[in-house]
């Protein structure tokens, strides 16, 4: 069976593997590189759980062949913050605003949101919802995800402000900017 040499920079690390051409990018990431943070959801390019950033653009890695990502730069959820390092702004936003329940869609959701904020650092609620059309969440009803993205937009360094009063919960402004 013929294989193809796939070299790619994944989360800043140069990786080279012999890959069967039919291997999907999501399986390359999960099974060959053991980066299991990227999830397989619907496996039909509907749900967005497998979203990663490929050369700066959010893509659904269940619908990209690993060979199509040769010589590309790939960022997965593991690439946003190393263990022990502070969360990225979007990760911290999901943490602060409780942008998840079961967490299955979350890696894809966070990657799609990261790509959105890279292009549009201060999106309105409408823009956030439009940008997340390709990511399904069956738990949250999306409102807390939108709040999470707004939190990240309002705190681009991802730093949680010190609470002026420990009894007052820190919240972003609901739907601010829309």
């Amino acid at each position: 069976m013929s294989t193809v040499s796939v070299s790619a920079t994944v989360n800043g690390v140069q990786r080279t593997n012999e890959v069967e051409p039919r291997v999907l990018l999501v399986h390359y990431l999960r099974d060959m590189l053991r980066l299991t943070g990227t999830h397989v959801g619907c496996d039909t390019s509907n749900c967005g759980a497998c979203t990663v950033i490929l050369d700066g653009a959010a893509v659904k890695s269940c619908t990209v062949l690993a060979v199509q990502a040769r010589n590309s730069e790939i960022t997965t959820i593991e690439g946003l913050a190393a263990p022990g390092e502070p969360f990225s702004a979007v990760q911290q936003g999901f943490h602060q605003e409780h942008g998840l329940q079961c967490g299955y869609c979350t890696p894809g959701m966070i990657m799609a949101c990261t790509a959105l904020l890279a292009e549009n650092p201060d999106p309105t609620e409408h823009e956030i919802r439009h940008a997340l059309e390709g990511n399904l969440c069956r738990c949250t009803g999306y409102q807390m995800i939108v709040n999470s993205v707004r939190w990240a937009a309002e705190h681009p360094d991802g730093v949680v402000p010190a609470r002026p009063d420990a009894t007052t919960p820190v919240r972003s402004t609901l739907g601010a900017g829309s």
Partner: protein
Amino acid sequence: MIPASFDYLEASSVDHAIALFAEHGDAKFLAGGHSLVPMMKLRLVSPSVLIDIGRLAELSYIDDRGDHVAVGALTRHRELEDSSLLAEQIGLLAHVAGQVGDPQVRNRGTIGGSLVHGDPAADLPAASLALRASMVITGAAGQRVVPAVDFFVNFLETAVGDGELLTEIRFPKRTGTRWAYQKFNRRAMDYAIVAVAVQLGDNPGIALVNMGPTPHFAVAASAALAAGAPASKIADAVLEGTGAWDDSNATREYREHLARELTTRALAKAGYTS
């Protein structure tokens, strides 16, 4: 779901791609892969060889050519959506490209791939029909130009033959800039249950999504539009020649209702007055 095994070859030019096909026979060209890869995952197609043309920069462009705008077949939906030249000159195309799938799909899918797939439920084929585009097909014998209305031959079948590539799509400029696209679906990312593309101006056109086995150019309605007929007459004419089907989304009757209603709305949105 994993595709059946295949050999992977990367083409370095259009000529190289065509030569590779001639050499290998049972092959498919791979562009963005957002129609082909899902088909392969479902094992609806299992080519022995994939010839990757996805990185041919020579096929990715949006050029002003005076009386028309030429779009390279590998131009991604996202690039169409973001093009200021298209927004100014061929606004319907830029808008419709932004209605395809979702942002991730638009980051990968290409206009040529969508057109060659020929899905009657897809957005861009209908836009190319309403805009009366011309398709440039390149093969071993050279290039030929096929009008959009002759391009969509049958269900998932186009005028592009074995070993040929759609390389460029030409959109004639309009004196009028008024147009509208009305898409009816249940979820933001879904294919249309029915959609209607309307372009006004010189040589206007109306095309329908999902009203038969191929993307459909509404001949009678387009003629009525060109003749300045009342909007109600155009909407009545829009079903002529359609062959909508029943499926889990809608009955034929419901689709026909949608086609009439969406045509009426599109004409109003485009500011059409007879």
